């Protein structure tokens, strides 16, 4: 496997969505290629940072009550 092939498979590898043979070839390439190893690590860190900076927020209780109220007044028979 060369660098170009690895780039096209890297997201599939991160998602564990490539077959075992490709996975082995990709890991073999990573063992000898610093550039692709750096690419993989920085891709993983990008996803990790994106999650960390988008932590769950608490839904405002007032908003939930507002939606309950809207549904009740609009649809109550």
């Amino acid at each position, binding site marked *: 496997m060369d*660098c*170009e092939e690895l*780039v096209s498979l*890297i*997201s*599939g590898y*991160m*998602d564990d*969505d490539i077959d075992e043979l490709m996975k082995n070839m990709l890991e073999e390439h990573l063992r000898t290629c*610093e*550039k692709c*190893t*750096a*690419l993989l*690590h*920085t*891709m*993983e*860190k*990008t*996803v990790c*940072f*994106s*999650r*960390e*900076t*988008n932590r*769950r*927020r*608490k*839904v*405002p209780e007032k*908003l*939930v009550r*507002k*939606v*309950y109220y*809207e*549904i*009740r007044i*609009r*649809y*109550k*028979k």
Partner: protein
Amino acid sequence: MGTNGELALVEKAKNGDIRAFEDLMKTTSGRIYNLGYRLLRNKEDAADIMQETYMTAYENLPRFKGNSSFSTWLYRIATNFALMKMRKEKGRKVPVARLKESEDSVREIEFPDWSDTPVNHLKNQELKAILDKEINALPPRYRSVFVLHDIEGFSIAKVAEILSISEAAVKTRSHRSRLYLREKLSEHFGSGGKRGLIPA
């Protein structure tokens, strides 16, 4: 809540039991609100998405056939509303051609490995601002895939189901979004941008 519990509540709600619908809201509103917030990146739009989603869901309950789970159906409604809002947004959007360029250029460049940057770097508001700005600049159909897959954590198959697109399209958009955002963070962390070179 299990699928059976969810379905039982859906049936009751279909028969006019508003309390059953409120119970469904209780278990799903956190995720719907957060999905809206992450897609639109502000409280006002997240609140609008949540309200529109539940009003639409209640009105359309008779049409819900249970082919997908109730929560997947809600995510689909919420994402569709969010996509409509995203398409009206003003401000910078990265052209799709530029995302393809990130994919092509990564094959030719060298870059430093900044992946050992400590997590406390997250305290850096600058990093958050960069990510917010760049995620926001992704074209709607890319942003929706990135948020659903990489931030919400839905599988490729589930994202395809929510967005009614093929799994291949999800994979392509996810891959290009990740490469583009990685490139933008690389620019932040040093000379690792599109033209960055590892010092000899």
